[in-house]
């Protein structure tokens, strides 16, 4: 094992998949000559050349659609959005074209494409640049959505996404690009399947379900709860669709209490679906209502204090757990 950053992990995943399969290419704004807006594609242009690392104009709808067309013809594009807030300009391509093609064509065309980039609120970027899009995209049949929170997951999930024959969205955490973490040695193949949650901390009193930005918050909350003799189990979902229902149900069957810590908004958010499924499938296991910690249901304010008030936090997770009684 060794320690690398989330950014390096993504860079390794890209390099390994582009190296492995000649039909894989990377396309997006500033991915080539600028080496990536967040330097995720650092060095790839030099290594693979302009035919495979391709800068685009600011045309998300255009280049997302171009990627889908190329995938119809058998290539495996990786399309970078500078942020998933900008993917909304290409929403029609992501919602209407990529996931519908298999059904509309009666199985003749599948779309092996990866859309990746930072997702979710960062820091004081205001309402237009702070969207957490996972609930929007997870709602669409035909799309897969994963949310790596660690360097290891970032590399393993991105590599799996590129090899998947369906459209997969890899929603990265902008604030985590410099985070360091343990990962397998170079040259060791790392593939993490979509739809496998990871138990980050074993516990017996409450299940905290989290993903992406809320993973460190949940772990911090669990430490604090431990001081009050509350033993929390923390599960990183890692992928929103498919979702590891078995891991969720098994943990809840053990703890009988659930708090869902999500980075999106409350109304029709990821936690809404999870809550529904838990009460439907294992209602009798619950000793208390399921609580959700999410963003407040408002457009993101710029002001730092107000932004903090909108976002989920370790403190809010602790408070929710204590509210369970």
């Amino acid at each position, binding site marked *: 094992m060794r320690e690398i950053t989330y950014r390096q992990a993504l860079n390794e995943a890209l390099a390994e998949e582009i190296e492995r399969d000649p039909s894989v290419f990377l396309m997006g704004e500033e991915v080539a000559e600028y080496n990536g807006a967040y330097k995720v594609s650092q060095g790839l242009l030099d290594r693979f050349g302009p035919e495979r690392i391709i800068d685009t104009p600011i045309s998300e709808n255009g280049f997302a659609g171009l990627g889908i067309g190329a995938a119809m013809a058998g290539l495996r594009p990786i399309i970078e959005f500078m942020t998933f807030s900008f993917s909304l300009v290409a929403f029609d391509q992501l919602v209407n074209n990529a996931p519908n093609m298999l059904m509309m064509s009666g199985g003749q065309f*599948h779309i092996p494409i990866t859309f990746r980039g930072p997702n979710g609120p960062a820091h004081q970027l205001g309402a237009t640049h702070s969207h957490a899009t996972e609930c929007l995209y997870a709602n669409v049949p035909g799309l897969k959505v994963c949310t790596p929170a660690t360097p290891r997951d970032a590399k393993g999930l991105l590599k799996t996404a590129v090899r998947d024959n369906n459209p997969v969205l890899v929603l990265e955490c902008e604030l985590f690009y410099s985070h360091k973490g343990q990962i397998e040695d170079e040259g060791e193949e790392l593939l993490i399947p979509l739809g496998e949650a990871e138990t980050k901390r074993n516990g017996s009193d409450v299940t905290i379900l989290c993903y992406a930005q809320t993973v460190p918050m949940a772990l911090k909350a669990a430490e604090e709860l431990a001081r009050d003799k509350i033993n929390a189990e923390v599960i990183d979902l890692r992928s929103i669709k498919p979702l590891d229902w078995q891991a969720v149900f098994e943990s809840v069957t053990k703890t009988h209490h659930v708090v869902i810590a999500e980075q999106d908004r409350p109304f029709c958010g990821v936690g809404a679906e999870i809550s529904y499924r838990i009460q439907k499938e294992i209602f009798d296991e619950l000793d208390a209502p399921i609580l959700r910690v999410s963003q407040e249901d408002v457009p993101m304010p710029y002001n730092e204090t107000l932004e903090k008030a909108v976002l989920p936090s370790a403190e809010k997770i602790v408070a929710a757990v204590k509210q369970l009684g």
Partner: protein
Amino acid sequence: MVSPEQRDEVEMLAMMLLIRRFEERASQQYQAQKIGGFCHLYIGQEAVVTGAVAATRPDDYIITAYRDHAHALARGTSADSCMAELFGKATGCSRGLGGSMHYFDKAHHMYGGHAIVGAHVPLGAGLAFASKYRKEDRVTLCFFGDGAINQGAFHEALNLAGLFKLPVIFICENNYFAMGTSVKRSTSLEQIADRAEGYDMPSEIIDGMSFREVRDKLSELIASIRKDPHPAFVEVRTYRYRGHSMSDPASYRTKEELEKYRLEDPIIRLRAQLTREGKLTNEQFDALDKKAKETVLASVKFAENSPEPPMENLYAYTYVDDGIDPQVVDPGVSPAKPRATRPASRASTAGKSREIGSQSKNGDVADTAAATPESA
């Protein structure tokens, strides 16, 4: 200049007849409520796609919008599978899952049938990108209507194609109306073809009622693109005799206007040319037309007698899994048995998580079992 790739003109006239008779029969079957959803007919525009296909190689990519029946037929998709698609049958060119607006035929390199106006134009650029990436000399023909040219996706795709020098011909089938809105009321330019100037690509205005003009001008462009990849834009002026869709009486235009275009009818025109040149007799033409009518009539019977898409395949076309033919029944989606009784205590639910894990990975089976292919 006549391309060596051009196909026999009598054969192409027969194709135009097949398209016309197919559309007439589709109209009749729609009125008889055998066909659901929306249905947009190509009558009047036959020379455009037929001429274009005559200029292509079979492995060139074709992609179009929702007025797509003719594009599949011209490419070689059988009338049987085209009609069956309208009927929503499993034997349709999209297995009855796409419908009138979403015809696909991969074997004939017909890449759809796309129903969001303008949204497929970037896909067309993507097909061309793939050819160039693989250093193939295929050309992509990307068809769309005059309504698409004011969509953002159209402009973004043209810019990308110009920037990347992609081997694609953007073919605007200008039938003068985007649904009920005339080009004059929708477009800031006098000539649609002038849009190409902004993207530094050659353009042509083509008489879309003339099979030969469409074929010959596209042949020239295709030859040039095969030599050295670049995009091109053509505005093909044509006319649809019917309304935008089956529900449109087309009251926004005059009978006189329609009659004017009928005199230019592409089938009559090619027939007259071939007759004049001694390549076609009246008897031969009548035989071609009779055959087209018979083929289409047989396609209705074929569609009627075809099976519905199997209910057990409902989930087979949402995700394709490695190595699994999506047309095979997904064994993971058989509806879960409802729980007979509520578990009395936690102890009795020990095995439950396994039971839950074996349920559909795709969603909530109980809530979706009511969906039928007919209602979808």
